[in-house]
């Protein structure tokens, strides 16, 4: 490459304007990094999941039954579109671990058939699979093993169907079914209290009296098979055996949580990079416009001596591209680095045997291309006007900036000082630049508002769910429904102060052609522990007949109080009836429907049964209670609300620092980039005037205040705009994040706005200070010797 004079000028300009160029490069880098991170993480997560599912022959359809004969499996296999099917035994067991006061839960799953050949194959990390003949051997999930420092050879005591059994751990494994291993009644995975154990079929069959029978079906479908029809067929076949309805893979907890994560990543990719690219384009435009104004006469000269406009434009584009390349390089590095960090985070939350973080060059190429495009667009808009000028006009000094008398008398009447009028007129003289500055700072505020609101929203979720709705200390869920008198037995257990029964019944609720599978909860007429809240947060009594639906479910089914819905219970009798919707309740987790426990039992026709009890427990008697509960054969699992909340909070706390750091850094990059460039441009335009004011006896502080008040106006006007944009972004994100799994309440308090503004104002103040040095160094005598 020949170093032409114009090229040398590019390098000299870069050296001279390096702080401004760096600020722009950093904004570009943030755009590149978020694009790479978002796209990279998205494809890493979805590719890894797809590959893992594929290599382990992960099932497409899952179905639970109470007890079905193995002969039924042949009928299932015969369903059109079913490629393979397996019958499993899946049961919850209790864990009795010396290091834990409360009993943990272990999901016991029969091993895939034919060793490593079946469906939902295990990925062995250590050790070996259990001997199919042995009733004393088990493989456990890796997260659980790590949390308890278990390795092959260790023994674990499991309460199965009320019987304690010591099992030897022969190996540690992963399963595609439990990438995100959420225990029953939990909101966050807690590998300490929930694990998965795989045992030989016979071993489990013996423990749960399921010889020659199964409790769970997994199916792989032929490509293109109509899943809805297969599910309908499976439901028809399993209904007589207590089938509660088959579910597609998409509704599986583990899968759905991964989907939710993918959705959030997708939202990030669509929101953050465009913001950075827009801001960067505006900064390039601002900075280059000023540069071009200063170099107007040179441009005229170049044109006069025969340089084509293209060549001159190319010069400025090269200048901007150099900055863009720097930004892209920083962005590549930052994106790869943050991607590795995110992969580590995923490895903690999601149990994958491998992580495909492909570093796809196409993602990088796209990021580089889009970024360079944004920068060049900003540049071309800046040079367009000057290139159009005839050389003679360009070489003449520009006509002096025309100021208008706008509001002069008004300001004087308002008691505005002349320096304030200078500020106001200068801002209004360049409306596009002023608006760009305001928009840029506003976007930085908006990024913070749109990310910080989630913390308050989580607190609201916790408050509503655990302190106003589920107020019990412990929820004890029976292995199978028990007669109502089990409440009295529970009441007699040590430490129990209050016991409140509940009934859970799987059902399909439909309205017109809308249909959802939910668990209908039966509660006492006036529940005291596990309550339901009206939208105004007042507890609701159970209606005599009729259902209360959660807001989410009511929305999904498009019903309002007073409408009728059809409820089909999915247990043995499969009763179907029409019930009125009596009310709508708040709730953030899952789709909820509730009714009076008596009415529910009458509706299902199964007699006065309960599924479990909610308990208040005297803290002093807690340990004794847990021992008794673990020993009781009725206990299916025990959810301890305090631990669930603590785990939820702890998990969030781990991420909160990382998240806040990242978002504050991103917002600060924008704020600093915009404010620093804006003030440097403003200083370049007004340096002469400011020096003149110093000659007239204005102090350094007074002169700096003129420039700073310009920045203050930008920053202040940007706040409400940023709040509004952030509010809109947050609202859209809350909508995008919500699913049938959980709904994210959009709560945003003054603290969010205040924090966002504080961060941005601090960043602005720091960049103003950087310019302050230059104001102090203004050369007073120089301005007297030269004409502008």
């Amino acid at each position, binding site marked *: 490459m020949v170093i032409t004079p114009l090229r040398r000028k590019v390098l000299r300009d870069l050296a001279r304007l390096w702080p401004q160029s760096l600020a722009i490069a950093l904004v570009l880098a943030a755009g590149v990094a978020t694009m790479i991170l978002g796209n990279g993480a998205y494809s890493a997560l979805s590719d890894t999941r797809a590959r893992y599912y594929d290599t382990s022959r992960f099932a497409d359809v899952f179905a639970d039954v109470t007890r079905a004969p193995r002969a039924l499996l042949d009928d299932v296999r015969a369903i059109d579109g079913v490629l393979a099917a397996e019958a499993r035994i899946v049961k919850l067991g209790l864990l009795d671990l010396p290091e834990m006061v409360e009993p943990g839960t272990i999901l016991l799953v029969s091993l895939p058939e034919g060793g490593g050949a079946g469906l939902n194959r295990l990925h062995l990390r250590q050790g070996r699979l259990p001997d199919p003949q042995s009733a004393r051997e088990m493989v456990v999930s890796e997260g659980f093993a790590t949390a308890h420092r278990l390795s092959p050879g260790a023994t674990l005591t499991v309460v199965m169907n009320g019987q304690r059994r010591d099992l030897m751990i022969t190996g540690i494994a992963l399963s595609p079914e439990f990438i995100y291993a959420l225990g029953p009644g939990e909101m966050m995975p807690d590998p300490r209290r929930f694990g998965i154990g795989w045992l030989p079929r016979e071993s489990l069959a013996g423990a749960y009296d399921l010889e020659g029978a199964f409790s769970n079906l997994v199916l792989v479908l032929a490509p293109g098979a109509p899943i809805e029809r297969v599910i309908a067929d499976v439901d028809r076949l399993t209904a007589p055996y207590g089938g509660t309805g088959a579910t597609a893979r998409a509704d599986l907890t583990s899968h759905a949580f991964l989907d939710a994560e993918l959705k959030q990543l997708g939202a990030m990719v669509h929101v953050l990079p465009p913001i950075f690219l827009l801001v960067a384009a505006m900064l390039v435009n601002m900075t280059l416009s000023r540069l071009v104004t200063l170099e107007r006469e040179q441009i005229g000269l170049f044109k006069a001596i025969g340089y084509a406009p293209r060549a001159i434009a190319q010069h400025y584009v090269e200048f901007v591209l150099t900055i863009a390349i720097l930004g892209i390089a920083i962005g590549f590095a930052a994106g790869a680095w943050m991607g590795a960090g995110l992969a580590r985070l995923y490895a903690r939350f999601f149990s994958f045997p491998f992580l495909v973080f492909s570093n796809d060059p196409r993602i990088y190429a796209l990021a580089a291309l889009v970024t360079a495009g944004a920068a060049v667009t900003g540049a071309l808009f800046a040079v367009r006007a000057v290139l159009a000028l005839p050389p003679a006009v360009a070489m003449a000094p520009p006509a002096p*900036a*025309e100021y208008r008398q706008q509001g*002069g008398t008004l300001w004087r009447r308002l008691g505005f000082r*002349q320096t304030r009028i*200078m500020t106001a*007129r200068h801002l209004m003289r360049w409306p596009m630049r002023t608006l760009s500055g305001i928009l840029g700072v506003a976007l930085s505020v908006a990024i913070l508002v749109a990310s910080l609101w989630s913390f308050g929203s989580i607190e609201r979720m916790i408050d509503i769910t655990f302190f106003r709705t589920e107020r019990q200390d412990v929820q004890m869920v029976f292995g199978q429904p028990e007669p109502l008198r089990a409440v009295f037995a529970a009441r007699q257990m040590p430490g129990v102060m209050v016991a409140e029964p509940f009934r859970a019944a799987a059902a399909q609720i439909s309205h017109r052609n809308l249909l959802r599978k939910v668990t209908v909860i039966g509660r006492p007429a006036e529940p005291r522990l596990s309550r339901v809240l009206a939208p105004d947060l007042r507890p609701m009594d159970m209606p005599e007949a009729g259902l209360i639906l959660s807001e989410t479910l009511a929305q999904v089914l498009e019903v309002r109080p007073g409408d009728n819905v059809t409820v089909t219970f999915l247990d043995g009798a499969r009763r179907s009836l029409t019930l009125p919707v009596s009310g709508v309740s708040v709730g953030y987790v899952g789709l909820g429907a509730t009714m009076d426990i008596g009415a529910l039992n009458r509706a299902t026709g199964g007699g006065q049964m309960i599924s479990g009890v909610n308990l208040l427990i005297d803290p002093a008697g807690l340990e004794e209670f847990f021992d008794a509960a673990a020993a009781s054969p009725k206990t299916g699992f025990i959810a301890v609300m305090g631990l669930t909340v603590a785990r939820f909070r702890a998990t969030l706390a781990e991420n909160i620092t990382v998240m806040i750091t990242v978002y504050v850094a991103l917002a600060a990059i924008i704020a600093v980039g915009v404010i620093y460039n804006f003030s440097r441009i403003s200083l370049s335009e007004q340096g002469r005037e400011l020096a003149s004011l110093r000659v*007239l*006896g204005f102090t350094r502080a007074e002169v700096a205040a003129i420039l700073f008040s310009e920045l203050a106006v930008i920053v202040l006007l940007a706040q409400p705009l940023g709040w509004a944009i952030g509010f809109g972004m947050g609202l859209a994100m809350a909508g995008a994040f919500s699913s049938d799994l959980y709904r994210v309440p959009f709560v945003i308090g003054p603290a969010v706005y205040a924090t966002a503004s504080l961060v941005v104002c601090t960043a602005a103040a720091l960049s103003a200070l950087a310019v302050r040095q230059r104001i102090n160094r203004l050369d007073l005598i120089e301005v*007297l010797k030269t004409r502008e």
Partner: protein
Amino acid sequence: MINEPDIVFRTKGLTKSYRSAAGEVQALRGVDFQAARGEFIVILGPSGSGKSTFLNIVGGLDTATSGEAWFKDHRLTALDARGLTQYRRDHVGFVFQFYNLVPSLTARENVALVTEIARNPMSPEAALALVGLTDRADHFPAQLSGGEQQRVAIARAIAKNPDVLLCDEPTGALDSATGIRVLEVLTEVNRRIGATTLVITHNAAIRDIADRVLRFADGRIVEETVNASRKAPADVSW
């Protein structure tokens, strides 16, 4: 040390040297000078003789290398940057060749800029009336001719009722008719507010309007002429 109440400026052995890569430049080589209240002094001299350097030091814009400069009982050569700023603000009015007006402020507002921070100012309107620009008060600098802009600069300089008015080639960028008009304004102002006025010029003809004429050469005052009678600017031939 200064007890003669009429002495406004006094310098002794004032020197200024600039050190640069190319070597040392002696801009002032010992200037001894006094000026009395209300005096109108014209400073002449070849280019590079140190006129501006001298004016800038007594105006508190620049610092001397050695020697002393006094304004009344303030020892300028002992003041720090903050003290010099305060001195300029309270006592000095400047007029420069290139006006140095703020383009975003009207004539009136340019004057008000100074009256707002002055201890004992006249009104911007009165200052503009003194320079004969009452009817252009609401015009921006870009809407005024060079001479008018210079008169606004003078109005801005005198509006604070300064003790001294320092003018560095105030007519340098103007044609002769306009220059005369500006000089008339300066002498008029000097008479009205009694400010000690120092005017640097290349136009030797202007010497006749002064009370006293100093000639600089090679960083020193080489000649001092006291005019027995002052001419009106209009009577000066350019």
